[in-house]
């Protein structure tokens, strides 16, 4: 995959910090502008918007829930850029939860919450949550990219 800047784009970015609200926007702008640089391969504006939204929802949830309300802890984010897909992983060492037990929202009864996990599922091709035996919670979000047209 060739990027806008003409560099091979098979790469990984690792970001480690505290799960503070302060970082929500800086991280989202990072992702938005990364997607812009990749735009020739990532594709249409809509896809970039959706990826940015899924990223935002995942980070917001870790900020809100992973370490209990009002408490923050370590969050480790990996962004893998591969020729055929983009992968975000979010790792925390917090409480963990059972995403499968979270019911989907009832869209006929608008509520003040409950859309985040569902939106990630709508916008990504794969969402997988694992809790490791050592107590690490890992959320993997994968978006498959359209086949590269200009691999010239």
């Amino acid at each position, binding site marked *: 995959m060739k990027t806008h800047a003409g560099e091979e784009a098979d790469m990984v970015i690792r970001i480690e910090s505290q799960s503070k*609200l302060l970082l*929500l*926007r800086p991280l*989202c702008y990072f992702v938005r502008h990364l997607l812009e640089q990749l735009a020739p391969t990532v594709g249409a*504006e*809509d896809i970039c*918007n959706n990826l*940015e*939204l899924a990223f*935002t*929802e995942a980070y*917001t949830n870790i*900020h*809100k829930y992973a370490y209990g309300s009002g408490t923050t802890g370590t969050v480790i984010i990996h962004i893998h850029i591969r020729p055929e897909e983009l992968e975000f992983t979010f790792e925390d060492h917090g409480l963990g939860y059972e995403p499968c037990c979270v019911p989907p*929202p009832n*869209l*006929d009864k*608008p*509520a*003040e*919450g409950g*859309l*985040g996990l569902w*939106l990630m599922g*709508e916008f990504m091709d794969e969402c997988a949550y694992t809790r490791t035996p050592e107590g690490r919670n890992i959320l993997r979000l994968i978006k498959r990219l359209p086949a590269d047209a200009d691999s010239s």
Partner: protein
Amino acid sequence: MLVQDKDGVAVIKMDERLDMVAAPALKEAISELVKANKTNVIIDLEQTKFIDSSGCGALVASLRALIKNKGDMKIAGPSHQARSLFELTRLHRVFEIYDDVETARLTFRK
């Protein structure tokens, strides 16, 4: 965020992003307006490029609070991203959405 009162309608102009950073300020502004009995409100999204589920949640909460207090809420000028999200979440059937603040304002005059 900027709150302005014009001819009995409050216009809340939102910033570039309506996310978990901005949501508390919106809810706070609405509760101030309710206290002041100014419950006809336009949420101006013309500057807002990005909205997420926290933003949608804050809008739903705002609408509820205003209706409960005999007012109403209209949304003006949402971006393409915001409109798509309202449609996906079916909030476009709950929110009254107009292209711009002026059009939204006229609907309060009727």
